């Protein structure tokens, strides 16, 4: 019983494969469009997921609390005098000022993040660049990079070393610089910092400390690390979702094509199914054949689409949607993402593509399967 059911499936699959190959042209065009739709949706998903994971990786080392000063609802420079009172709050382990900003490199049309690192203060005139920056600028260790300062003069800084990090999201645009050089380039006043970062020993006290800071300095905004994570998560998911909705336009076109292909059985196919039924195939045998047909097409398209999307996102730097998803600055240096692919993404992709395709093919398959067996005699 079980053995013969197995043999039956084998026979039907054999026949299905040879049928698919016999109609190469028609099935190939369907496969191409199907693969393309899966490729598009998968690219967006891989991309958002990877950027998110990369950002997470960076943020896990981030300070528990960041304090920003607000001015008319905008981020402003924070006076260093705020540090002492904050340090005295119970539970605060340390407070450090941070100096950082963006530098636009007109020649290369790229935006870099300049961050002051204490270790750099001993060697003014030297910088340390991420490997992504080095790649973009085609520079190596001991190379010189000119920086255009606020007044139009140039500051020539020497590359002390090139560093890499787990995530290229960080190293692709990061330049570490000394405090002196940083203040020189931007004419940054000496008694302020970009923001303050706090280390807190007990995570349960985070909220209390944040509330106290806010009471002490009502013009500040303390931000918890968890909140940043949450916001990233939401923002990226939202963008990814939006792009997926737009892509549904494409998907819809595909569904229409699938529908058309499945409903519009050619005379030749109709005749064939009629013959099968006349010589002893039952409706459910033809349905089984149609099931395998759909499974073969879906599986092929799904695998090709996934592989192409993987290559597109992780090797070809997702040229197709770069600006849509990344977009924290439109001109952003090129970087490579760390691959993250999970069953979760694959299941989601399945629901967004294979499920609708399959549903559109059910009724037409059934219509084909219920062709009258005596049709071949009446024709």
């Amino acid at each position, binding site marked *: 019983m079980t053995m013969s059911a197995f043999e039956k499936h084998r026979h039907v699959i054999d026949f299905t494969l040879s049928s698919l190959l016999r109609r190469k042209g028609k099935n190939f065009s369907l496969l191409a469009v199907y693969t393309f739709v899966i490729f598009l949706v998968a690219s967006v998903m891989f991309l958002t997921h990877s950027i998110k994971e990369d950002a997470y990786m960076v943020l896990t080392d981030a300070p528990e609390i960041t304090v920003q000063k607000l001015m008319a609802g905008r981020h402003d420079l924070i006076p260093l005098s705020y540090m002492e009172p904050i340090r005295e709050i119970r539970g605060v382990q340390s407070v450090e000022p941070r100096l950082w900003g963006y530098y636009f490199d007109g020649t290369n049309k790229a935006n870099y993040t300049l961050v002051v690192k204490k270790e750099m203060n001993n060697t003014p005139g030297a910088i340390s660049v991420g490997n992504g920056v080095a790649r973009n600028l085609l520079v190596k260790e001991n190379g010189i990079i000119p920086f255009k300062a606020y007044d139009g003069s140039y500051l020539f800084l020497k590359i002390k070393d090139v560093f890499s990090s787990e995530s290229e999201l960080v190293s692709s645009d990061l330049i570490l610089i000394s405090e002196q050089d940083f203040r020189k380039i931007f004419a940054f006043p000496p008694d302020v910092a970009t923001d303050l970062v706090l280390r807190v020993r007990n995570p349960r006290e985070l*909220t209390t400390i944040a509330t106290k800071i806010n009471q002490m300095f009502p013009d500040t905004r303390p931000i918890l690390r968890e*909140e940043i994570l*949450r916001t990233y998560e939401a923002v990226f*998911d939202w963008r990814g979702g939006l792009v997926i909705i737009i892509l549904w336009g494409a998907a819809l076109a595909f569904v229409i094509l699938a529908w058309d292909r499945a409903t519009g059985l050619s005379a030749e196919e109709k005749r064939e199914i009629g013959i099968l039924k006349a010589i002893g195939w039952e409706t459910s045998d033809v*349905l089984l054949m149609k099931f395998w047909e759909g499974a073969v097409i879906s599986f092929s398209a799904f695998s090709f689409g996934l592989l192409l999307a993987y290559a597109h996102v992780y090797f070809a730097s997702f040229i197709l949607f770069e600006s849509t998803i990344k977009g924290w600055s439109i001109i952003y240096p090129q970087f490579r993402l760390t691959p993250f692919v999970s069953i979760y993404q694959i299941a989601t992709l399945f*629901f967004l593509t294979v*499920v609708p395709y399959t*549903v559109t093919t059910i009724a037409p398959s059934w219509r084909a399967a*219920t062709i009258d067996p005596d049709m071949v005699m009446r024709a």
Partner: protein
Amino acid sequence: MIFHGPILGLLLGSLLVSFMLVYSAFYAVQILLRWDMRSGSEIQLGLERRTYLISVLITYALGFQLLSLFLFIYTADHLAPLFVGAMCAAGSLNVNPWGYPTIVLKIVNFILGAVWLVINFTDNRAWDYPLIRKKYALLLCIAPLILAETIFQTAYSAGLHPNIITSCCGTLFTADAAGVTSGIIALPPIPLAVTFYTLMGATLICGVYYRRAGKGVTLFSILSSLTFLASGVALISFIPLYFYELPTHHCPFCLLHKEYLYVGYALYLAFLGGVISGLGVGILKPFSGVESLKGVVPGIQRRLALASLVSNGISLLIVVYGVLSSNLILLD
């Protein structure tokens, strides 16, 4: 509402499944009203053909339902960081009142769908469609439940408002928000463990007895269902404790994580397999008297009982393994 790939996928899937069920229900009504086996009229021939379509629709819908159950849990899990206080799926399902009812409906619908397919399979073995009216009446009961599930799931998704940084307020927002309670009520583990093992043992013994002696169908079916209910409760009372080795973490969903070697998938599938086949055995019992099914039903019942025994055996093995290999010892 969160625009999120998996949520969009789930909503799309549910819409399609609902559509398939509504379509089937429409023809179910036609079949209930106009079915006449004796007639060779075109209407009758047309209806007979429709039954093939409906079988295919329900089979696919059931497959999608199973996938969507896991995807739903996984999505809830994934969304947890968006909500203050939610540590995993148990928390994010509690973000609004629709989360848990959606899960329950997904499980109930899956079981009902599978039972329908068992009846359908049996009916198709007889030459005179003896169960046609019963099975299409059952289909009419399932369709509204599927619609309810879709509505619940949509309401759940629409009611997700992540706690994110806004320009006006940073942390204060976190402090003010009540936060999501962690979700699963802690139930006394030891008495529930005893109940679970007793029922599981009784089901296995009764199943073996039925396979040997051919008697005790009804009891076996009832025991299987009770075991399933006990398993559900066990999944939120004592089973997770052993796997997580934490005496307070009651979440049944974290078992699906990689850290626990995805043991949750095997366990969930085994529990579902156990109840579906166990219920199937009992549901077919009244039909063994039907003339055209006399030779068919006992064979199907025996195979279902075997499937139920294997499923329950697997779940028992997983649970026992988890308990024995755990470093946690429960003292109540």
